[in-house]
């Protein structure tokens, strides 16, 4: 009997959490846009986007380099090293760019968002804003949500471009693949709508999911030091799982049926 009650309780808790998460999202998104919040959003884009730039660019570079190195050793056996360009470009544009950026973003920026909002809640800053008749959803949460939504697709595009340049670095400069075939076969294979834009659409979806989870976990955290630490962990775990799961679904929709 006891476990049945526990099952019911945890189910109800889940549903309640989904409801609270939707409330946070609606409260911060469906607000009348206020011009005075634009500087706040830019400030958050600096924290969330610009400060993630170095980790994104370094990982993009190395992932492109590793892709080129691995691809070359296999392709050269078949004399097909000309296909290195499209291989690197397609795998980065379609999969690795959006997914790795989202995972890094969850670890680098999502956890920080959760911890920041959680600590604001623990130190009752959010409550004091409400006392002053300022809606913390609009003042604190909305700029962070928008900053995340805007920054992550931008980071993904930069990641992809740097990754392809990294592939060029290893493939062409180091291993001696012909530069002309690297770029021209890439150009004839990669399509703007099917490959580049689908990657960007993926990253917009991931940005939405990761930022939403990060913000909700912070806003909903238990206002103690354990609570904030648990919320930060949950942010990274949940958003990583959500990104990987959604990536499969999106890939199946975009590239599955041709």
């Amino acid at each position: 009997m006891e476990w049945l009650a526990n099952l019911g309780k945890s189910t109800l808790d889940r549903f309640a959490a989904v409801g609270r998460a939707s409330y946070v999202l609606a409260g911060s998104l469906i607000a009348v846009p206020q011009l005075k919040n634009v500087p706040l959003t830019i400030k958050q884009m600096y924290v969330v986007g610009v400060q993630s730039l170095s980790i994104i660019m370094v990982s993009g570079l190395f992932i492109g380099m590793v892709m080129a190195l691995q691809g070359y050793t296999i392709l050269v056996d078949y004399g097909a090293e000309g296909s290195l360009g499209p291989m690197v470009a397609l795998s980065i544009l379609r999969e690795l760019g959006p997914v790795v950026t989202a995972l890094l973003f969850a670890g680098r920026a999502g956890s920080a968002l959760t911890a920041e909002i959680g600590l604001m809640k623990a130190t009752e800053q959010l409550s004091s804003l409400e006392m002053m008749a300022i809606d913390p959803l609009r003042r604190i949460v909305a700029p962070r949500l928008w900053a995340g939504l805007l920054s992550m697709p931008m980071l993904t595009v930069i990641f992809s471009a740097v990754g392809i340049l990294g592939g060029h670095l290893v493939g062409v400069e180091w291993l001696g693949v012909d530069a002309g075939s690297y770029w021209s076969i890439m150009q004839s294979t990669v399509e703007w709508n099917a490959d580049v834009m689908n990657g960007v659409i993926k990253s917009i979806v991931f940005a939405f999911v990761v930022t939403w989870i990060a913000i909700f976990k912070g806003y909903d955290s238990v206002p103690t030091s354990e609570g904030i630490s648990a919320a930060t962990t949950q942010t990274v775990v949940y958003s990583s799982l959500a990104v990987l799961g959604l990536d499969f679904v999106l890939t199946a929709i975009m590239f599955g049926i041709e």
Partner: protein
Amino acid sequence: MTSRKSEILVGLFVALTIAATLMLAMNVASKGSVGQGETYNLYAKFDNIGGLKVRSSVKVGGVTIGRVESIHLDPEDFTPVVTLSIVKQYNAFPETSSVSILTSGLLGEQYVGLQPGFSIDDIENLAEGDYIADTKSALVLEDLIGQFLFSRDND
């Protein structure tokens, strides 16, 4: 002052994104005339399409002018019908044109080669929905080897 600095850095971030997008647009993706813009459809019946796929390219003398839109089997005479979607810009192929399924390189992917035919006054141009009558099927390597072995046995 700190907010000014962060604004400048965000501006730099945006500029970097634009540069990356431009790089992807110019160097990585093919924007070209094919894939976008208005197209018209031609149909061709082949005996065997080999490894032709949807989105394979349609070429005239090596220049891509369209893509394979869809492939299906005619339910009555069981021959594959290939729909070719061709850019409107190239809309003056005579009816005597022929199409064949070719392979780029020994192991490369297959594409549709269109050979423009002769045009005399009373020959019309191919238009939306027309069937191209003169088609040559794909070379299937297994058939070729079979024929080769067969002809050797006869000697």
